[in-house]
C-alpha cells in the first residue's frame, strides 16, 4: 500500500484532488493522490496544490468545479465532456465521497447493472426484474471502452421519473480511473443525462469518488440532483468497502464473471493491456 505509483499512464494524467465547493478561502485542505500527501488552498478564484513533504508546488488547474493535479508531466488534457458546455444543462459536482477500496473497484461497480435490484432496491431496480439483457461492448478509436444497448427496468430512474420505466444506458470508460454513463432523460426521452465518475486514486486501497453530473435543467434543481446522486452512491459505499481483496484482480481466473459482466471483463483486460497496476493485483506473468 505504501509502494509509490510507477504507472506513467496515471502519473502523467490529471486527477481531481478537491471539489472547489468544500474549500475555504486560505485554509489548506488535506488531499492525497497516488500515495502522495497534498495540500489544496483556495485564494479567490485561484487554488494552489503543494506536496506536503518538501512543500513543492504541484501542477494544477481548475475545471468542472474541481481542482485537478498532475504529479508527472501531463501527456494529455483533462477529459473533455461536450455536454458540460450545453446551456440547458445543470453541471453539478455531486459531492465527493471517500471510499475504502481501490478506485478501480469503484469504476467497475459503476459499470455493473447486475447489482441494481439488490443494492438500489426500489430506485434503480427491484425484484423480479433482475435480468441484465445482453449488450454490446467495444473499444473505440479513441481507446475508450463503450458499452451500448444497455437496458434496465428502473422503478425510480431519476428524481424526475414518474414511475417505473425501461431505461437506456450507455457506459464509457474514458481513462483507467474515469467512467461515464449516459441515461434517458425521463422528460425528454430523446436526450441523455450524463454522470461522469472521476475517481481519485488516494492510494491503492482508498479512493475518492467525484461524481460530475450534466442533467437537462427541465423539471429539476441542483440540490435535488445532488440528493439523488448521494442517495444512490451511499448505497454502493458499504458494498464497495466490503469487497475482498480491496484491489482489483486483473488475472482472468481470479474472479468468475457471468455474461452480464462483459464490460467488466473488457475493462480488466483493457487495464492489463495498458499496464495499469496501481490499485490492481496484476495478473500472474
Amino acid at each position, binding site marked *: 500500500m505504501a509502494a509509490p505509483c510507477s504507472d506513467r499512464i496515471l502519473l502523467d494524467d490529471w486527477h481531481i484532488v478537491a471539489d472547489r465547493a468544500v474549500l475555504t478561502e486560505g485554509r489548506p485542505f488535506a488531499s492525497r493522490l497516488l500515495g502522495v500527501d497534498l495540500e489544496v488552498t483556495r485564494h479567490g478564484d485561484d487554488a494552489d496544490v503543494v506536496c506536503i513533504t518538501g512543500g513543492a508546488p504541484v501542477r494544477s488547474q481548475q475545471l468542472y468545479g474541481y481542482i485537478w493535479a498532475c504529479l508527472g508531466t501531463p501527456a494529455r488534457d483533462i477529459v473533455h465532456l461536450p455536454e458540460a458546455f450545453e446551456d440547458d444543462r445543470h453541471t453539478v459536482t455531486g459531492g465527493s465521497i471517500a471510499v475504502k477500496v481501490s478506485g478501480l473497484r469503484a469504476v467497475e461497480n459503476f459499470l455493473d447493472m447486475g447489482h441494481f435490484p439488490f443494492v438500489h432496491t426500489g430506485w434503480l431496480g427491484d425484484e423480479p426484474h433482475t435480468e441484465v439483457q445482453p449488450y454490446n461492448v467495444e473499444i473505440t478509436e479513441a481507446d475508450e471502452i463503450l458499452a451500448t444497448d444497455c437496458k434496465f427496468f428502473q422503478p425510480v430512474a431519476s428524481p424526475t421519473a414518474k414511475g417505473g420505466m425501461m431505461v437506456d444506458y450507455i457506459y464509457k470508460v474514458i481513462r483507467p480511473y474515469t467512467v461515464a454513463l449516459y441515461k434517458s432523460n425521463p422528460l425528454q426521452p430523446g436526450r441523455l443525462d450524463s454522470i461522469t465518475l472521476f475517481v481519485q486514486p488516494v492510494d491503492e486501497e482508498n479512493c475518492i469518488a467525484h461524481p460530475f453530473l450534466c442533467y437537462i435543467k427541465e423539471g429539476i434543481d441542483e*440540490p435535488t440532483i445532488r440528493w439523488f446522486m448521494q442517495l444512490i452512491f451511499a*448505497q454502493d459505499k458499504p458494498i464497495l468497502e466490503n469487497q475482498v481483496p480491496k484491489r482489483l484482480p486483473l488475472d482472468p481466473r481470479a474472479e468468475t464473471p457471468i455474461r452480464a459482466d462483459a464490460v467488466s471483463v473488457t475493462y480488466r483486460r483493457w487495464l492489463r493491456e495498458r499496464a495499469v497496476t496501481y490499485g490492481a493485483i496484476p495478473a500472474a506473468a
Partner: protein
Amino acid sequence: MITLYDYELSGNCYKLRLLMSMLGVKYKAVPVDFYPGREHKSEWFLAINPLGQLPVIEDDGLILRDAQAILVYLAARYDPSKKWYPVDDPKMLGEIGQWLAFADGITSTSSAARLHDGLFYDFDVDAARAGAHRLFRILDEHLWFGEQEGREWICSAPHPTVADIACFPYIMLSEEGGIPRQDYSAIRRWCDRVKRIDGFVVMSGVFPASPARAA
C-alpha cells in the same frame, strides 16, 4: 403537513423519517444541500435554525430543531398508543431522557468518525472512534443484561421507545467511520429487532433485515 428539512445521508434526519414511517405520519421532505453545498449554513437556513444544523421540522406553526427533541414531539403528538413516548409514566420518561442524551454522545463520536472518513471533516478520528467504542461497550452490556431479563429494548418497556430510534442510526452507520461492531453481539441482535419493527425503512448505508424471522 409536517415539513422536514432533510439530508439523505444524515443519521439524525433518518431517525425522524424512521419514526414518522413507523407512526404512519405523512410529511414533506425538503432536501437541503448539506454537502458539498453547505446550505445549512446559508442565510435562509440560519433564519430557521441559528445553530446551522439539521434536522428541523415545521409543523402547525411550530419550528423545532434537534433530532432528539423532534422525536419526543412527534411521539407525544402523533402516537395515540403513547408507547413511543409514554407521557404518563415518569420513570419511563426519565429512562428515555437518559438514553436520548446517550444518543447525542453516539452522534459526537460515531457520526464524527463517519464524517471524517467519508466527507473529509477535520476531526480527531482516533478520539472519536475510541469514544464510540466506549459507548457501544456500555450499551452492549446494557442490552445483554436486558436479554437475560427478557427485555428486548433499550428502556424497560415491553416495546420500543424513541430511545431505540435515537440510538439506532449512528450505530448502524459506524462501519463507515472505521468502527466495527463484531464485538457487540447484543447490539447486533438489537439492531435486527429494530429492523423488524412495522414501518421500518432504510437509508443509504443501512440494509433491511432478511425477510424471514430467524427460527
